[in-house]
């Protein structure tokens, strides 16, 4: 993903070729626009009706961010508890691991029964989908500290808090960010699915409505906007990663760049 971004030019070229081929083939074979509209029609439709899409975008984006932040705030302390307390590891963690197997999307209809059509079920589904990858990655991160580094720490007489801030937390950050990125990618999916199940606003709702009216051009427009929202959330997390742990990114990001940042 990152390598693709760096080779910007190639990717943009490939997309242009893709859209061009799409346009030419649709027109060449005379495909009905309600089946597959050419990119030019998608663009024209979107240009005409974007204000409504934009309104829905804010709704969905807010659901994504709220659910995702809730997941981060809950999962990281929980991961710490699991990593540092044997009791938590033996009682709470097996339950978490088991729940991870449950297809979370299947729970969405239940949320409607429990919480109705409003914001809450969306928040909870986004939370649920982003939560597990973050917990699992953070537990692995907190537990993977080299025992020799901790031995070294113990010979300095440093207390647990100091060891946490200077050794355990920075050590766990790369893995935590891996989980954060997986969670971010899932958050968008979760918000759309939650809106599919029951809602009267948001991009997922809009998608269903356009779909029902066979306004295929707008369906494509919404899908593209959704992808952009997902991409923005993902890259926001990655930007934070780059700022937080530049040493890690520079080490593993690109072999062609000189090693020292």
């Amino acid at each position, binding site marked *: 993903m990152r390598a693709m971004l760096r080779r910007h030019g190639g990717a943009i070229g490939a997309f242009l070729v893709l859209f061009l081929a799409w346009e030419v083939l649709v027109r060449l074979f005379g495909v009905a626009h309600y089946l597959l509209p050419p990119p030019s029609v998608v663009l024209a439709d979107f240009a005409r009706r974007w204000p409504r899409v934009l309104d829905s975008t804010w709704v969905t984006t807010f659901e994504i961010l709220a659910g995702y932040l809730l997941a981060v705030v809950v999962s990281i302390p929980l991961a710490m508890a699991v990593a540092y307390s044997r009791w938590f590891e033996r009682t709470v963690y097996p339950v978490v691991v088991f729940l991870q197997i449950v297809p979370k999307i299947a729970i969405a209809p239940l949320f409607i029964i429990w919480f109705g059509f409003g914001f809450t079920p969306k928040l909870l589904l986004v939370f649920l989908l982003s939560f597990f990858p973050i917990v699992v990655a953070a537990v692995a991160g907190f537990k993977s500290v*080299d025992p*020799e*580094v901790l*031995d*070294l*720490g*113990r*010979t*300095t*007489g*440093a207390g647990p808090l*100091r*060891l946490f801030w*200077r*050794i355990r937390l*920075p*050590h766990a950050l790369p893995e935590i960010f891996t989980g954060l990125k997986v969670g971010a990618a899932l958050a968008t999916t979760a918000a759309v699915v939650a809106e599919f199940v029951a809602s009267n606003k948001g991009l997922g709702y809009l998608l269903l409505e356009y779909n029902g009216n066979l306004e295929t051009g707008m369906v494509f427009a919404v899908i593209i906007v959704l992808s952009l929202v997902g991409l923005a959330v993902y890259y926001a997390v990655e930007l934070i990663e780059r700022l937080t*742990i530049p*040493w*890690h990114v*520079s*080490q593993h990001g690109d072999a062609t760049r000189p*090693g*020292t*940042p």
Partner: protein
Amino acid sequence: MTAGILVEGVGKTFHPQEGRAGTPVRALEGIDMVLPEGAFVAVVGPSGCGKSTLLRMLAGLLPCEEGRIAVMGRAVEGPVTDIGVVFQKPVLLPWRDVLGNVMLQLELRGRDARAELPRAERLLAAVGLDGFASSYPHALSGGMQQRASIVRALVHDPPLLLMDEPFGALDALTREQLRIDLEQLWLESGKTVLFITHSIDEAVLLADEVLVMTPRPGRIERRVDVPIPRPRGLDGRSHPVFRTIVDEVTRIFLDKGVLHGTGERASLLGAQSGGKGS
């Protein structure tokens, strides 16, 4: 003579974890040793002879249930803090540059790292790392990483340095250079050093006294004094005593079945020891 380290009748048995299958392993048996203050003592033995266990017990990282250990005149009951430890791996933190890794030692002790910057810089220069203070570990060779970890073990000026096969993962040439540099550093600092290695040559070239350890259970088979004058540097090997002591230690390992030799030299040493042993 004050003792840097005093070990009396120390033994160690590792029991299998609760609820797991396995038999207890006797790692150490009847260890006695005295390290005078300022001495350089090497422990040489094969992998698995318990020498790392012994070091970890001296550092207070493993509990001592059998026998008595005192370090710098104090009985060891928990992690010992007035020491510097160098492990086989450099264990540098990848998110800190060389200077940051060195300063970690001071920060973890709650000491003012800035005030001791000149000392850290002096030590870095002494091991040839001047100019690399702001390099990150992944940009350094294994030898340079280990040099940084040695500086980290010295920056708080501990009276005692424990080294657990510090050169074990390095190539032969780097090892040789680090050995020479370590001797120089020790001569200048006058610290007590316990150096663990599986290399007989390294032990004999570095130490005033070599403790020969044999496995299962780990015990100190013999103490050997090394009267080679200092600084030994590159000349240590050509001193006549060097070969004699290396042979003496090799013979112990042949005797105990740690080494199995073929060729004239092995049978010579083996025959000698057979004669002496009976």
